[in-house]
């Protein structure tokens, strides 16, 4: 089920095509509205926009738009108009709730639930606004909250290198949560020494940077590597990937791990909940043979499939006892990554009274190779490794944690040696 892909709304052009494509009664319109309603509930889409988008079509389809009562003409609504948002919100109460309700059925595969969910939503939309509940917009902390930039969720991390002690617990947690094959270290912790910084060791935990302008998605010939529009996650569709490894070659950070042979953990041992995301696409857990894998920012958690309490957390963050990893919505000023940065900075304020021209704080932050223009969504607090930094052995050896550092050793053992669990 690849049909419910939000990227189709990306350009006016495609939007146009979508309108053209709309043929019969209900199904298409329902599907789209359901999908968009989910976006509204996730905070990806403003209610005003949702209303504007469907106003004419609802009129056309049902002769009357129930929602219209007391509402301004959609074309005159400005997304900045707070009152308009309130009024529209009133009309939309419950959509998010209705839609979220369809995800619950554990006994069915995600794929079939997705299909049914869309259908159910299409039906439910007939009686818009009748179910009373809270609006869906609150958990996503929509654009209205005013994050760094842009609306909607943008998952990201702040990793505080000063806190990291190189225990490798995050690597192990990631490895287990995603059933990774030996040597596929989606999370990888460097211990490094830098020139002129003495003998002191530094650490650098490295995930996929989930770049906003990611080269890997640009080069993928089949669009398997894509940015999920609802929250900016960079994911690989395991059903589509042809395994050309172009993404791996184009990624400046070396975070991709191809599945060269049979995965260590067979498909039968992994729940669909871990693998299929809320759009019904197979993007989670370890990749099958011949397909590319990398850190997913625990997409299964973000979609609520590991339980509501795990939304906004990652396995590595959970495993870190040193408070080094902070995961959350970068568009939300209250989220852990933003909060942590804020707190850390305010703890290290500069004396602006005496030195008015100094920066507000003395905290050094960086993103990896920002000059490449990839716009990473992972930011670090601490010392950036210089070009002369060298990886050294850390206090905890990879082997001691049951992790293989250099995957080539595994691969060199060949098909019969390495890849069996």
């Amino acid at each position, binding site marked *: 089920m*690849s*049909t419910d*892909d939000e*990227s*189709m*709304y*990306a*350009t*006016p*052009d*495609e*939007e146009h*095509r979508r309108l053209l494509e709309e043929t019969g009664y209900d199904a298409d319109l329902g599907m789209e509205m359901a999908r968009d309603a989910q976006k509204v509930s996730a905070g*990806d*889409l*403003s209610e*005003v*926009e949702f209303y504007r*988008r469907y106003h004419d079509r609802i009129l056309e389809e049902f002769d009357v738009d129930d929602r219209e009562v007391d509402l301004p003409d959609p074309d005159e609504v400005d*997304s900045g108009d707070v009152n308009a948002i309130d009024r529209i919100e009133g009309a939309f109460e419950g959509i998010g709730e209705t839609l979220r309700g369809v995800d619950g059925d554990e006994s069915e595969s995600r794929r079939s639930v997705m299909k049914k969910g869309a259908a159910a939503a299409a039906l439910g939309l007939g009686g818009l606004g009748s179910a009373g509940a809270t609006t869906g917009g609150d958990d996503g902390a929509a*654009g209205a909250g005013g994050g760094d*930039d*842009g*609306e*909607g969720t*943008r998952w990201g991390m702040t990793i505080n290198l000063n806190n990291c002690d190189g225990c490798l617990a995050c690597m192990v947690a990631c490895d287990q949560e995603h059933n990774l094959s030996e040597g596929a270290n989606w999370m990888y912790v460097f211990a490094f020494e830098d020139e002129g910084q003495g003998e002191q060791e530094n650490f650098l935990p490295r995930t996929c940077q989930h770049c*906003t*302008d*990611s080269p890997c*998605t*640009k080069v993928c010939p*089949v*669009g*398997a590597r*894509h*940015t999920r*529009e609802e929250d*900016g996650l*960079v994911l690989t*569709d395991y059903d589509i990937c042809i395994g050309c490894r172009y993404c791996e070659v184009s990624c400046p950070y070396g975070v991709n791990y191809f599945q060269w042979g049979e995965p260590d953990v067979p498909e039968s041992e992994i729940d669909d909940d871990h693998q299929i995301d809320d759009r019904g696409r197979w993007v989670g857990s370890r990749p099958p043979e*011949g397909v590319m894998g990398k850190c997913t920012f625990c997409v299964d958690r973000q979609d609520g499939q590991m339980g509501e309490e795990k939304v906004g957390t990652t396995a590595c963050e959970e495993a870190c006892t040193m408070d080094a990893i902070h995961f959350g919505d970068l568009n939300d000023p209250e989220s852990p990554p933003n909060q942590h940065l804020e707190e850390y900075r305010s703890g290290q304020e500069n004396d602006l009274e005496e030195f008015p021209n100094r920066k507000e704080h003395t905290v050094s932050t960086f993103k990896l190779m920002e000059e490449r223009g990839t*716009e990473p969504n992972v930011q670090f607090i601490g010392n950036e490794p210089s070009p002369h930094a060298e990886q050294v052995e850390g206090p905890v050896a990879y082997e001691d944690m049951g992790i293989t550092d250099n995957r080539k050793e595994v691969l060199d053992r060949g098909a019969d040696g390495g890849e069996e669990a």
Partner: protein
Amino acid sequence: MTPLAASAVAALASGPAAVPLASSPEYTLPFVGPGTYLIFGIVLLPVYAMVAAWFIGDPSDRFANLLGLGYLAGLTTVLWGSLFVATIIIGVVFF
């Protein structure tokens, strides 16, 4: 640009263009997209010129022209068709 498009672009790439730099394909689409326009609209112009010249210029022969067109279309089909068969066989036997 609508707020929708603006937010889509902002979420994807803060570049100025309205074209998504990173988007996944829509698999229910017919064979139409920006790439279709680029290849069939621009890159294949020399081929169109060639075919036009076949028909318009002199000497010209209807049968030969159609035969040429047939080869172009037929070979493309055969190429992809046989690749398709090969991949299906590989898929059935090995995956």
